[in-house]
């Protein structure tokens, strides 16, 4: 089953809106440029698939998908999983940094208090 025209239009709109949304964030310095690149790449990828549906047809035939739209779903799930993985790593790093910062502040505080009570 080829991807129907309404779905293609929906995909195009979705990808353009994603790009617009993230670029607005960049414009008002609400997001780091590194972090915006993934979403721009994502929306470019979606746009590409919806403008050239022959690619999904080719992949679906080669790999035995029931329907072309499943190729789109699966690739989106795959992209999101990768993103999820990297975010999980990053949260973990942030966690340990936060812990180490909190400890540093508390240790410094203790040092100051000890110094004050000695005088």
């Amino acid at each position, binding site marked *: 089953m080829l991807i129907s025209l309404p779905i293609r239009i929906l995909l195009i709109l979705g990808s353009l809106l994603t790009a617009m949304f993230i670029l607005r964030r960049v414009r*008002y*310095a609400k997001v780091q*440029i590194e972090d915006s690149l993934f979403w*721009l790449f994502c929306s470019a990828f979606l746009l590409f698939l919806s403008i050239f549906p022959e690619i999904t047809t080719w992949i679906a035939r080669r790999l035995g998908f029931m329907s072309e739209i499943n190729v789109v779903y699966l690739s989106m799930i795959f992209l999101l999983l990768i993103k999820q993985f990297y975010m999980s790593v990053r949260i973990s790093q942030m966690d340990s940094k936060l812990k*180490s910062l909190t400890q540093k502040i508390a240790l410094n505080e203790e040092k100051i208090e000890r110094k004050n009570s000695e005088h």
Partner: protein
Amino acid sequence: MSKLLIVIPAYNEEDNIVRVVSELSERYPQYDYVVINDGSRDQTATLCRQHGFRLIDLPVNLGLAGAFQTGLRYAAENGYDCALQFDADGQHKPEYIQPMLEELENGADIVIGSRFLTVKKPKSLRMLGSYLISWAIRLTTGRAICDPTSGMRMFNRRMVNEFALNLNYGPEPDTISYLIKNGAIVKEIQVEMGERVAGSSYLTFTRAAQYMFKMGLSILLIQWFRKREPVIAYPERSL
């Protein structure tokens, strides 16, 4: 003469830091410097303390952009007129600070210590990235920046204030291209750079390729969309 602060971000530079900073403080006592230890896991901070260097010791690793920004906040808070980004690995030569400072006083906002202003850039794989970034900046701003990846850059007070507090102001070519587009005056001065004497470079091939990709996309695509906020002087903002 304007008051200059040399910002030296250092990450795992125990083999170089003493040599580099000693040379600066002994032969060029007219300049102030500060070492920003970016959460190194080696003896960098200990060595700085032993030798009595002026040190800001970050408790966690922030990356080059975060470490350098710390130095610029320090410059802004302590009333410096300009700041210089200076590598801790001995690649940058302090004798070029004076000509860069003169160029800055002639009215430039940013002065880049450039390896390829009068010297031809070698056509090697290592310089491919530099060529591509130069081309991207030329395409988007119309200006020729001969050595965009040089890490030796001097910023005037306005730039220091702007870099000190804002998001997406890493000391990288994409910020330079964005600022040129917004009317900043960027000049280059021919300098010589040495090879890293000890320790290992952070830049492996994969990292270099990744860096190139990020810079390319950022310069060609993203910088168009950024909006520049008016610069507010640091002390007024923190009051």
